């Protein structure tokens, strides 16, 4: 490797050219090189657009009931059918995207902030403080995120804001664990010792050298974990302890359709499909982002 690297060097001009030509196509063709990523990104953006412009896109009011239009199969006036109260499923799915994405994004942000603080503190501290922080993280991690979210809901009560908080808290554990391992990894690197050698104050080293190197992997984690947050929040609604019934939430819709699944499968199937498509799209986007940001994976290409 040393030979190939150094062989670029002696005359600097060819090295310039080589670097220039390898860099340009990479910047241009992220979307062309990763067709699945582009497709998944479009799908995810579609959900975002639905969420933002829900009142303009949805053909019906998601909460209006109608006895005439009860349990209609997909097609006709109601594209994805209606549920047992005659509410339009397509409209409810479009409005449901709002709740899913809001809960997903904000819960992950809460989890990431908590995880960043806890993880950096645990990674930088030593002695009994590190021990205490690690036991705290371990205790959060000991419970599966759904169980932890249920426990928090049991304390706080129901509602969208409580669900966000519950799911966010349940994500603090995994986030802080990855942040801490990143901090430990960065802390041991030579450029930190070099900064120490320059007598740069400890806090400046943390701000200037450690945090940026921890922050980018964290951004990748955020994109990957949004789908987990959505799944947990939908599970809460499905169990009937998330958001309360008239709200057009996907988990809730799946739960409502459960009793009619043998003769009106679209009632559960449609929101289930929407959930699955969004989760798969987010997972593909997250993977692609991780691969693009990770310098080790990039080099392997």
């Amino acid at each position, binding site marked *: 490797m*040393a*030979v190939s*690297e*150094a*062989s*670029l*060097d*002696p005359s*600097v001009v060819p*090295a*310039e050219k080589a*670097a220039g030509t390898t*860099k340009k196509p990479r910047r241009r063709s992220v979307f062309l090189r990763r067709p699945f990523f582009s497709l998944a990104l479009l799908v995810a953006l579609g959900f975002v657009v639905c969420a933002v412009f829900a009142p303009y896109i949805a053909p019906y009011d998601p909460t209006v009931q109608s006895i005439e239009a009860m349990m209609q199969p997909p097609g006709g006036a109601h594209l994805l059918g209606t549920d047992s109260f005659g509410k339009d499923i397509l409209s409810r799915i479009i409005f449901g995207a709002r709740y899913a994405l809001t809960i997903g994004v904000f819960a992950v942000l809460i989890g990431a902030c908590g995880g960043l603080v806890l993880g950096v503190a645990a990674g930088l501290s030593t002695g009994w403080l590190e021990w205490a922080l690690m036991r705290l993280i371990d205790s959060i991690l000991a419970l599966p995120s759904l169980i932890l979210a249920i426990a928090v809901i049991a304390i706080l009560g129901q509602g969208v804001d409580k669900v966000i908080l519950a799911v966010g808290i349940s994500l603090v554990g995994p986030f802080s664990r990855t942040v801490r391992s990143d901090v430990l990894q960065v802390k041991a*690197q*030579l*450029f930190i*010792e*070099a*900064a*120490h*050698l*320059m*007598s*740069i104050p400890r806090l400046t080293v943390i701000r*200037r*050298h450690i945090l*940026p*190197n921890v922050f*980018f992997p964290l951004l990748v984690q955020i994109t990957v974990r949004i789908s987990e947050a959505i799944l947990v929040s939908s599970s809460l609604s499905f169990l009937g302890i998330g958001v309360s019934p008239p709200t057009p939430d996907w988990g809730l819709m799946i739960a409502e359709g459960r009793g009619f699944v043998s003769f009106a499968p679209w009632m559960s199937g449609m929101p289930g499909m929407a959930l699955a498509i969004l989760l798969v799209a987010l997972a593909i986007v997250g993977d692609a982002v991780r691969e693009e940001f990770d*310098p080790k994976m990039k080099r392997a290409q």
Partner: protein
Amino acid sequence: MTKPGTAAPAASPAQGTNAPGTGASDRPVFELLDVEKRFTVSRPAGFLKREKRSLAALDGVRLTVRRGASIALVGESGSGKSTLLRVLLGLAEPSDGKALYLGQPVKEVRAKSRDFARSVAMIYQDARASLDPRMTVSALIAEPLLHFGLCGREAVGERVAALLTRVGLPAEIAGRYPAALSGGQVRRVAIARALAAEPTVLIADEAVSGLDVSTQAQLLNLLRGLKREMGLTLLFITHDLGVASYLCEEIAIMYLGRIVETGPTDAVLSAPAHPYSLALRRAAPEFFAPITDPLEGEIPSPLDLPPGCRFATRCPFVEDDCRSAEPILAPVARGRTVACRHPLNAEDSPVSPQMPAPAVTHAVGSRPGEGAEVSA
């Protein structure tokens, strides 16, 4: 942990040595007085038992680095070169003995003010790892400039460009990240960063090893030029005798945590007094000649040191009294010291018959290839 600003005016008269001028110029920059660095290692000793033993990475090292000197520190892997460096830089505290910078313990000087950090710059062996991957080249070089307040923010761009030119890099490299640079370019950036603080002492750990020959030559010329122009004190760790002779006027050869021979590079390399120096010298490949006498065996573990002279197990000239007591570093000739009971005589040990002795001088051409050929 006093702030540098408050510490400086409160300095006692004894600290006047820090100031440039009167007594400071003849005082050695670095002094190691019988420095010992021990590490405790534990290893299994039977079932569920561990025994703790202490390992001496440095054992009674004496070294004086005068202002303006250029010293090469040579030795096999595991001889304690890097530990010596860490002690010098204040990254490791000596277990015994003293490490002094301008007559004061390194640790105190470091804690007291930023002067030490500014005057002593380090070039790491792994240049890429010593640069923050999330910073651009210009940010990396600007960091010491701004940290030591060497120029205002508006002048930084200019200074960075000047430093890049100085190490022979094009200015447009400033916006790149280290990952986009080649091995040789990264070393230059590391050198530029070290020079940014306007140091008086440059410590380099294998700064040119593992590079291809032409890049190595460029960097050596660069360092040599810098040494001459800026009057740098240079401490160069290397295992390449050719590099040592090209760049450094003095050489210190280490073996198992001890310095076994010191002296002017030419004299030591052309007529080694210690059998180990001779072995190193002979193990270096030469043009058109087979490697005559490779040194047999591995360096012994510092955990189980042989009794007497540490080199006795591998020494071709070993005698009975070598195994009984350890030799100390003693003067043998002008400016030369050696730790050997039976030092080799310069006439007795011709390094290679075809080599003309007076050829090894620092006047040897500016091309490093030539220097390496003559000396290695």
